């Protein structure tokens, strides 16, 4: 059995399989691939010898679309990349365009943005926790996680009318004032949530099956993570204490106290613990922010027609999945000349092969889950 393919120089690359080796396709329609990810595994018995991710099934040409839209028109499209963390996508894009314009959102807008983005981080991590645990065989957490995520989505819905693809922010600030009772609802959620995280942990953290399925699985060293450009919780679980919210603060993060959780082993279990702690820290940020939301305008004066001066800018934020960057080139017209999105899921997924080699087929499911990818963002 052989597997041939062509590379860019049109020479044929042939993989010769050993006597006990087989090629196994996982996906693109597989419940544990979290979307349309196809993984081609070369197996020696139950062990993964080599793997290849085949992506692009959800490619919509977002970067090309941007070149035919005005700056404001493109803003809703970014929500469709990482569609489980649309608010974070919007924050990154709006801030990037503001930087390009030389504008800055007013303090009140920045604080509200921070609160909503942190709630989004919790929602994104909850979805990850529920589905990841479900993949590995823990059925209960997903119901709990969706219960709390629902509360966050309700806050989003009340705020801007949408639950998932929110388009919550505008270039220059916010379109909507917070609704009556916003502070109380966020506060109530955050106060109740502390106990909920403990509840999830009682289900998993010391559960023998969970520990057995995650400890020592999909190890990624810090050096490998940096070389592969991996960011976010995956990088922090490998022992690199780096978070853009601290390293290069944006929105209102410089005003709040929070810790950056890190772990050393870089395995699936550590990535689980890092994300659990991150939810606690997000909660902490929300509670601080909600105490004193500045009064004042919510929108900077940026004008209705945006024509950023020619030039370019790169701006990135700490999205739930890692560094989400926007590189925007302006030619002085109303439409961006080029928008490049640096998608954390795409770049983190590249580390999959490193993590999967030598592991069992069953662990591949755990590894896909632990990277926390969203295919809408991988493929764009």
């Amino acid at each position: 059995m052989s597997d041939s393919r062509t590379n860019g120089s049109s020479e044929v690359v042939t993989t010769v399989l050993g006597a006990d080796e087989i090629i196994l396709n996982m996906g693109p329609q597989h419940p544990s691939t979290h979307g349309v990810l196809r993984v081609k595994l070369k197996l020696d018995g139950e062990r993964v010898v080599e793997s290849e991710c085949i992506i692009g099934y959800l490619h919509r040409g977002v970067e090309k679309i941007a070149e035919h839209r005005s700056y404001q028109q493109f803003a809703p499209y970014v929500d469709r990349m990482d569609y489980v963390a649309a608010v974070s996508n919007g924050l990154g894009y709006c801030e990037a365009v503001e930087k390009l314009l030389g504008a800055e959102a007013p303090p009140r807008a920045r604080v509200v943005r921070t609160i909503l983005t942190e709630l989004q981080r919790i929602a994104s991590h909850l979805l990850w926790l529920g589905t990841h645990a479900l993949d590995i065989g823990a059925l209960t957490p997903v119901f709990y996680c969706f219960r709390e995520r629902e509360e966050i989505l309700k806050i989003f819905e009340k705020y801007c009318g949408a639950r998932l693809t929110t388009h919550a922010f505008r270039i220059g600030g916010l379109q909507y004032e917070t609704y009556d009772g916003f502070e109380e609802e966020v506060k109530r959620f955050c106060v109740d949530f502390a106990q909920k995280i403990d509840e999830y942990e009682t289900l998993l953290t010391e559960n023998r099956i969970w520990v057995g399925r995650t400890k020592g699985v999909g190890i990624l060293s810090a050096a490998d993570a940096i070389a592969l450009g991996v960011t976010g919780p995956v990088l922090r679980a490998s022992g690199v204490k780096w978070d853009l919210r601290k390293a290069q603060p944006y929105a209102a993060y410089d005003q709040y106290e929070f810790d950056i959780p890190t772990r050393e082993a870089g395995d699936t279990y550590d990535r689980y613990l890092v994300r659990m702690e991150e939810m606690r820290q997000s909660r902490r940020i929300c509670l601080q922010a909600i105490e004193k939301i500045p009064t004042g305008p919510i929108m900077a004066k940026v004008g209705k027609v945006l024509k950023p001066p020619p030039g370019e800018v790169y701006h990135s934020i700490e999205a739930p999945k890692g560094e989400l960057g926007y590189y925007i080139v302006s030619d002085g017209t109303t439409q961006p000349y080029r928008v490049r999105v640096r998608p954390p899921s795409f770049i983190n997924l590249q580390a999959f092969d490193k993590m999967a080699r030598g592991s069992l087929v069953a662990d591949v499911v755990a590894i896909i889950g632990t990277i926390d990818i969203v295919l809408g963002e991988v493929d764009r």
Partner: protein
Amino acid sequence: MANDPSEKVPPSQPPEGKAEGAPVSPKAAAPAAAAPPKAGAPPPPKVVTAAPIPLDNELVQRLEAHFGEAIREATLDRKQAIVLIAAEKLREIARYCRDEEKFDMLVDLTAVDWPKREKRFDLILILYSFAKNERLRLKAHAGENERVPSSVEIWPAANWLERECYDMFGIVFEGHPNLRRILLPDEWEGHPLRKNYDILKQDTAWVRENLGIESGQ
């Protein structure tokens, strides 16, 4: 639908030529407002004419000392450092940046197409240094049929990024271990992020081939 953006004229200079430092203030509008308005004359176009800020910090000096002519230009745009380098020296400069200047992470690698320019592509590498908490943007010009050195052996992260760049722009990276399309199917024709790529033509062909009908576009 405006699908032929090759008509869109890029700024008279390549973008780094128009780079600006600080957040832009609308200074350019001031002289226009001060001038007595002539009846019937169209208002003067609002052009921001801030000169590019040349960058001359220690990093640039060290780079120039090492690579001389290969460092073409260093500018600051919106407080972000951009160094224009010669494409053929990309690998050496990249290696130096990683080993000596501690830019240990390749954040992103992408390209921008300027079809009217002699060398149409800007190849962009965004680097980050954990030690300095600093970003650096390397930029190289590349012609349509030019092969540029691959950075995969310096930053393994470049593997998929260069594949995407090849997929979207058709830039060929010399020394890449597996330069194939990544997001689009292998049999795809053309490179969509080139400015002269015709979306409608592709759509018509695809619909005819896969659905057996004429596209309504």
